[in-house]
């Protein structure tokens, strides 16, 4: 027993002391912070550069009612179309909007510029023109726009989840996001650390040290020590990431909050807010934003992280055993290809599913079964967890997962103990079965 600890210690320390480990530990949270900050900075940028839309209104009914917003400025075109087009090529942020005479029937506009028009600008323009046309059509039929708006109901769904703690505001969108994110994380990390196990086994085979070591310990002890040691490296990395991300985000958030008010003058702020609120494209998002904030506050991060760790550990133990067996069967990494595909298929399948069926129907039959089968449950269950999973289902899945990795470890060890001493044999599935059946 003590010998397994020795092996675990060596496998752990030799990897944690590597420079690459430290780099990745610090890099990933910084990357996340950078992305988050970058997105914010860019969106601030976007709304502060103005675009000028030169309008040639051949219908005569639209231009006068077009409203400027914080980033769009409508200007009546004074020169004929050809000259305006030339003007476009010389200036940035200049657009030419041509409204045809028969806009009511044709219902299409032309927007020209020297660069690709942003989706935001297109949306803004079409929304405004739509509103204007609707107003005109209603007036033509004799309905007053004010009356119309006062009778148009505006339903807003507040979705509440009945949990053990009482009713809590929830949002399926957020759950989807977290589910997909967890799926990615588990998929990636299982592969990264599983591959490290495999590579370690191949290295030991190649530099022949394995023969000395198994004159001191049993092959099973070596395999297990390796798996646990590398698993601990993964856990250490996660813990460091969580701690680092937490500190960085709090610090980063404070700094940004500090900076924000200084970037905008009062005018710009009110412009921004009015443009945001008046723009048709934004009304929807406003509701979503407030929902998101409400739900985020209610997410039980510690629960999520605990589940993540449990399923990561279970899935890792299951798959790393298989990776170890594959590593013992080959002489170098290129030969692992033929084994990797079947082993990774269940994971890959679940991973792809998690962006479709699983997030759309997290309590349906496919999601249920995938979250129970040990080979797929690490990913499938993590996708389901943000949507809420009954305790009994979680427990059952965990028990099955434990059974799963006990099984794969047993199978893998029987292949491993023979494989590590075999060189030059072309590994095939038939060979593996032979090895499995060797008496000691």
């Amino acid at each position, binding site marked *: 027993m003590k010998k397994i600890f020795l092996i675990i210690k060596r496998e752990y320390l030799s990897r944690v002391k590597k420079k690459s480990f430290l780099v990745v530990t610090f890099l990933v949270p910084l990357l996340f912070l950078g992305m988050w900050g970058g997105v914010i900075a860019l969106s601030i940028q976007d709304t502060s550069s103005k675009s000028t839309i030169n309008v040639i209104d051949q219908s005569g009914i639209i231009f006068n009612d077009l409203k400027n917003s914080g980033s769009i400025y409508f200007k009546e075109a004074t020169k004929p179309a050809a000259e305006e087009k030339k003007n476009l090529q010389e200036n940035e942020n200049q657009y030419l909007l041509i409204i045809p005479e028969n806009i009511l029937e044709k219902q299409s506009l032309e927007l020209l510029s020297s660069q690709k028009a942003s989706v935001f600008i297109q949306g803004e323009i079409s929304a405004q023109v739509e509103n204007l046309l609707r107003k005109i059509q209603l007036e033509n039929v004799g309905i007053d726009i004010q009356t119309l708006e006062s009778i148009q109901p505006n339903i807003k769904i507040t979705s509440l989840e009945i949990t053990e703690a009482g009713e809590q505001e929830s949002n399926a969108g957020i759950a989807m996001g977290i589910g997909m994110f967890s799926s990615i994380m588990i998929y990636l990390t299982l592969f990264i650390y599983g591959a490290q196990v495999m590579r370690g086994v191949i290295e030991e085979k*190649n530099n*022949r*040290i394995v023969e000395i070591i198994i004159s001191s310990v049993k092959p099973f002890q070596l395999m297990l020590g390796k798996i646990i040691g590398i698993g601990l490296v993964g856990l250490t990395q996660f813990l460091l990431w969580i701690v680092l991300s937490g500190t960085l985000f709090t610090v980063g958030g404070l700094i940004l909050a500090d900076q924000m008010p200084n970037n905008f003058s009062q005018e710009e702020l009110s412009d921004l807010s009015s443009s945001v609120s008046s723009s048709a494209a934004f009304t929807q998002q406003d509701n979503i934003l407030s929902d998101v904030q409400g739900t985020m506050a209610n997410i039980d991060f510690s629960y999520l992280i605990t589940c993540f760790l449990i399923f990561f550990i279970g899935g890792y133990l299951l798959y790393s055993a298989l990776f170890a067996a594959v590593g013992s069967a080959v002489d170098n990494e290129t030969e692992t290809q033929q084994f990797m595909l079947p082993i990774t298929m269940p994971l890959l399948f679940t991973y792809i599913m998690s962006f479709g069926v699983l997030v759309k129907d997290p309590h349906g039959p496919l999601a249920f079964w995938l979250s129970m089968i040990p080979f797929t449950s690490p990913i499938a269950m993590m996708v389901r967890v943000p949507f809420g999973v009954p305790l009994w289902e979680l427990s059952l899945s965990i028990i099955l997962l434990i059974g799963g990795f006990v099984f794969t470890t047993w199978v893998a060890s029987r292949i491993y103990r023979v494989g590590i001493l075999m060189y030059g044999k072309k590994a095939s599935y038939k060979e593996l079965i032979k090895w499995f059946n060797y008496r000691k």
Partner: protein
Amino acid sequence: MLEVKDIVKQYAKHRALDHVSFSIKKGSIFGLLGPNGAGKTSLIRIINQITAPDQGEILFNGEPLGEKHISRIGYLPEERGLYKKMLIGEQMLYLAQLKGLSKPYATERIKDWFEKMEMQTWWNKKVEDLSKGMQQKVQFVATVIHEPELIILDEPFSGFDPVNVDIIKNEIINLNKKGSTIIFSTHRMESVEELCDSIVLINKSKKILDGKVSEIKNAYRNNQYLIKYTTSEHQLENQEGNHLFKVLSMENHDHETKATIEISDKHSINEVLTYLISQQFQIQELIEIIPSIHDIFIKQVKETY
């Protein structure tokens, strides 16, 4: 000290060891010989408990091989290897501890050995920073660091330059003097002659012969002698009615002639000497040609093919 009893090892289509038995006396240097593929490595792996025999057993000091014997055996495999990127001092500690030594004790032993082999500056070097010969030295030390009672060396001299071969040879002799039993598997017959007390020869999974080196060589003596005498008109060859011996070969030089003779059955070297002196031969040197292990090996292997 070690008794190999009726070992059979079968791999799917190939029998590696076929009822092999022999014993090794405590404190001896024992040679495990045989052509490639004979079954030596399989046997070594069984002794190291890396694999188990299908039939038969091995007794270590009278007890069947078990886990407690792991710390009492040291093994240097033919294919050498260490963790390339691990520091040497650290790696030695790791291997010594896996064999059962405590950390402080292991550290002390490693320091002693490093001094003895002039390796002190290597403690914090990575294995991959050393030359091949240096790596092998490290590996040798790792094999014996835990003072095992039984040391198994598979081709210990391969990869070493002559200076290091000598150093290793001396270390082997020293360890043996201190009481370790040494099993030596090699193709280099000169080293066998030099170092081994007893040998076993294995070919095609079977034991061909075993026993003390001196006894074996005795058994293969065929009464051949090398005579050096002063060149004169007397010729050894043209002896009429010479029933004492057969001349196998002659080498004529200006001042001396060398001849290999084989004495006929039932006659002794004394008779030959008496005869030669009576014939006025000026004898300079007379030695018996005792077959080398090398020759015995080849003869035996050829016979069993």
